[in-house]
């Protein structure tokens, strides 16, 4: 018998007033699967997470959780899911009671102390040093780790994280990442993470979805280039970059402000100006980051074109051959026809 997915979403619509709408026609998340959500702020990542956590109710469509259509915060089902919000809130009590709270509301009484000690240990907070502290005696990073420990102790079927490392120090970031990696080794738990941290996501999740203006517009390998676009009169359209440079697309766009998509695999990287004039876009850039995904063969090279950031994909061998390193000035090339207009509706 085929395994039932943890989540099955169909025809999901949610909106805040008239200005923003999230629409997910269909999506499945399997048990133990990990998903990354990337995209600009206000694009719908947090809203999707809140819907998956049953904190918000869809206006239309359904979210099946283990085959059950969930309405509102059906507490028995919702208890299989937990979300860590971007800015954690700690209860005005001790750290011990904060971490134990989820167990207490479930009526669990066995081995509370050991379980709290284990959960705090998972996020790198020694029990003897932190358990007795009050909520206000922690740094921002420690508070985030306590909030994570209070979720990990519940051993949920789905752990949802909204920008878990956005506003914390580098050591706490490392401990948060490590705690998630460690617990997923011992527990079959689905993970959905909204983050701008592509380097981490590439190594931590099975799939990445890019969310823009309330729509999933592809995998994380696609770059979104926002408008405005200006007609050149020869069927091509251009977007102004810094220092008088332009980026060319084959038009016409559905609207001046329409965003264009560009696959990372369509971007070629060169270390010297390229002579191939059939490619319309040949632009100088600076490498701002490089990372490899544990499940991907290619390297992601993040480059700054002066006003926009793109992610190009290249093999590790080619990166080694060209000696591409962060901070290096390079050239990127891609044809105007490689840019596809984003169709949201």
């Amino acid at each position: 018998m085929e395994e039932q997915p943890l989540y099955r979403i169909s025809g999901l619509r949610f909106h805040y007033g008239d200005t923003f709408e999230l629409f997910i026609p269909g999506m499945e998340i399997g048990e133990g699967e990990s998903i990354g959500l990337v995209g600009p702020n206000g694009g719908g990542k947090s809203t999707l997470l809140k819907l998956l956590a049953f904190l918000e109710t869809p206006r239309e469509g359904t979210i099946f959780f283990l085959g059950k259509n969930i309405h509102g915060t059906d507490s028995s089902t919702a208890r299989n899911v937990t979300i860590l919000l971007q800015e954690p809130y700690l209860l005005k009590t001790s750290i011990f009671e904060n971490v134990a709270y989820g167990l207490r509301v479930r009526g669990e009484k066995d081995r509370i102390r050991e379980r709290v000690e284990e959960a705090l240990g998972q996020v790198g907070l020694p029990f003897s040093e932190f358990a007795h502290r009050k909520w206000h005696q922690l740094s921002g990073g420690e508070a985030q780790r306590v909030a994570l420990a209070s979720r990990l102790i519940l051993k949920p079927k789905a752990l949802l994280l909204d920008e878990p490392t956005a506003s914390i120090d580098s050591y706490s970031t490392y401990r948060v990442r490590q705690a998630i990696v460690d617990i997923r080794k011992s527990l079959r738990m689905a993970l959905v993470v909204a983050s701008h941290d592509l380097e981490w996501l590439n190594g931590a999740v099975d799939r990445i979805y890019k969310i823009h203006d309330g729509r999933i517009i592809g995998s994380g390998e696609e770059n979104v280039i926002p408008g405005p676009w200006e007609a050149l009169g020869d069927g091509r359209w251009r977007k102004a970059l810094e220092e008088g440079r332009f980026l060319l697309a084959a038009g016409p766009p559905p609207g001046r402000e329409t965003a264009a998509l560009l696959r990372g695999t369509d971007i070629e990287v060169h270390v010297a100006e390229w002579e191939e004039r059939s490619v319309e876009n040949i632009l100088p850039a600076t490498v701002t980051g490089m990372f490899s995904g544990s499940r991907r063969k290619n390297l992601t090279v993040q480059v700054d074109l002066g006003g926009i950031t793109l992610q190009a994909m290249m093999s590790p061998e080619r990166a080694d051959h060209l000696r591409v390193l962060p901070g290096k000035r390079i050239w990127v090339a891609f044809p105007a026809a490689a840019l596809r207009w984003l169709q949201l509706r």
Partner: protein
Amino acid sequence: MDYLGSGFLRALVLLFSGDPETFSAVTTTLEVSSLSILASLALGIPGGFILGYFEFPGKKQLRALVDTLLALPTVVVGLVVYAFISRRGPLGEMALLFTVPGIALAQTILVLPIVVSLTATAVEGLDRRLRLTLITLGANARQIALQTLLEARFAVLTAAVTAYGRAISEVGISMMIGGNIKWHTRTITTAVALETGKGEFAMGIALGIVLLTLALLVNAVLVTLRRKQ
């Protein structure tokens, strides 16, 4: 001005010699204010929580009414309660007039809006993330409500202390409902008013010192609680 200086010295003698009349007024005050504060907390905390936590039709109007009652004049409360508990009043058979429970009843009415309003404000002012956090940790509706009240506990205590400060310092109700009966319903404030009228400053000053000390203690507790919030 010598009479003030000698009055102050005699006041210290009254206090340190344990003058029974002075201490009768102090114990009556503590008895009355404790009864009224317990009753107002028992009614006001649940009432304030409901007003701050739930959404219901007429909530804004009820909130406006409670806030208006914060400025309730003591003599108006005294008048209304007097009318109710005097022999001709609907509660006349309870024989509460000129008794400690009678003063406590009227003081409860006086300070109840303080407890309700400050508790409601405390609950309304809690961080938006609290509810989301409790839901995501698996709390049900009852557990969310209970934890919400616990999170507001410092502000609720502040409400209680503020109400206590109002109760111990009022004079109108104690005078009208208690009748200022020596050894029986005479409180610090009514005694001070009486002794001042008689030109007997020593006991007035002695009781004033006690009242100021109580007010200072109340304020110290308030400052500590505000620091904890």
